[in-house]
């Protein structure tokens, strides 16, 4: 039966007990109470509950809570460290993100060029030299042995230019890849492993840069995580 009382009614009854109803609400509730025994019973129980709560004794305090300068100093120190740690963590995280982005951007573009150059160096001796030899044999009937070097050879062999032009254009070109690689194979490139190679110095500078990036990333990650954990622990009050 008690369940029929709506939550809104409980709210009105509760406010009625504390004298928090307007005159109009008060008059309306009084009228309902006169004719509704369930509402009367609910009001009685609510009043009783309130009386029980009010009957609870005030607890005696276990000690005085007056402050000492030491208490304030300790609390102030810990509360000052917290924002510093939090800021350091956030800053390190942001810097780490920038370093990651920069690392990615710097490495992705030049690495393609590097790969090409390195791959030329690496793959030329075993496979492409043979291919270059074959092509050279095929090119024998024509004056000027560098027929397949077409575009690349132009700059290198000025004196043969007039004679080689026509035959070169007639020779069937196997594939662009072979052309390119054969050109590389025949060209007097510096041998792999030479100390003065520009590729090597490029690779070397790249390695140094990569190492620096890795170190920077590790340091920033350690700061971000360490400061974050310290701030969290401090905040949770498990330190000190």
């Amino acid at each position, binding site marked *: 039966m008690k369940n029929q009382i709506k*939550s809104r009614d409980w709210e009105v009854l509760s*406010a009625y007990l504390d004298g928090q109803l307007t005159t109009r609400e008060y008059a309306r509730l009084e009228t309902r109470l006169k004719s509704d025994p369930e509402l009367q019973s609910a009001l009685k129980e609510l009043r009783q509950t309130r009386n029980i709560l009010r009957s609870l004794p005030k607890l005696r305090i276990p000690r*005085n809570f007056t402050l000492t300068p030491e208490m304030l100093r300790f609390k102030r120190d810990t509360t000052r460290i917290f924002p510093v740690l939090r800021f350091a963590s956030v800053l390190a995280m942001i810097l780490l993100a920038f370093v990651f982005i920069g690392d990615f951007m710097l490495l992705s573009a030049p690495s393609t060029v590097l790969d090409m150059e390195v791959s030329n160096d690496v793959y030329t001796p075993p496979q492409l030299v043979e291919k270059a030899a074959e092509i050279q044999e095929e090119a024998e009937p024509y004056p000027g042995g560098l027929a397949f070097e077409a575009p690349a050879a132009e700059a290198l062999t000025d004196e043969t230019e007039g004679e080689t032009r026509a035959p070169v254009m007639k020779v069937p070109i196997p594939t662009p890849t072979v052309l390119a690689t054969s050109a590389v194979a025949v060209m007097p490139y510096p041998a792999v492993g030479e100390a003065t190679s520009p590729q090597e110095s490029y690779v070397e500078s790249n390695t140094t840069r990569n190492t620096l990036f890795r170190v920077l990333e590790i340091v920033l990650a350690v700061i971000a995580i360490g400061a974050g954990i310290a701030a969290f622990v401090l905040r949770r009050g498990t330190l000190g």
Partner: protein
Amino acid sequence: MDESALIAAARQGDLDSFNHLVLAYQELIFNQAYRVMGESNAADDATQDAFIAAFRKLNTYRGGSFRAWLLRIVTNICYDELRRRKRHPTTQLEPLDDAGEEIESPNWIADPIESPEETAERAELGRAIQRCIDDLPPDFRVVVTLVDIQGLDYAEVAEVVGKPLGTVKSRLARARTRLRRCLRGFWELLPSALRLDYEE
């Protein structure tokens, strides 16, 4: 020295003036912390932290009820602690002593604040009521203790919890109806005067 003069002096860093305020309000703050936290050790910590925070943030006090301002600080500290406990529950349901034996009356069940006489007279009912209060959601718990135990009016409670009057009324009504149901289970513990009232 009146309250506003003490507050003004404390704002200038006068710790003695602030300690006068502490002495005036410590019982209220401790009781509120106890009713919300449900145990005296946590209430002790919350009370101390509340006064330290109050002293440090005294420049943010903009007048009005100083009592409500202090109660707001301790309420927020209690909320923080309750949230922390919810994330990291540590209390064993069946605490053991050093020998591995189960403790029948651990300190978080016993109430060290009351004297033995008071404990004998009121402990059982008091614990029953506190258990019912503990079962309430924290928002309801705070409002009902502020109104029915601390005796604040609705406007002051609204200031403490930072909610409109309508929310306070609603939370209070729901807290009281829940407590009504819970207390029915402890009917035999009620003093005869209160029990007769229930039976009418």
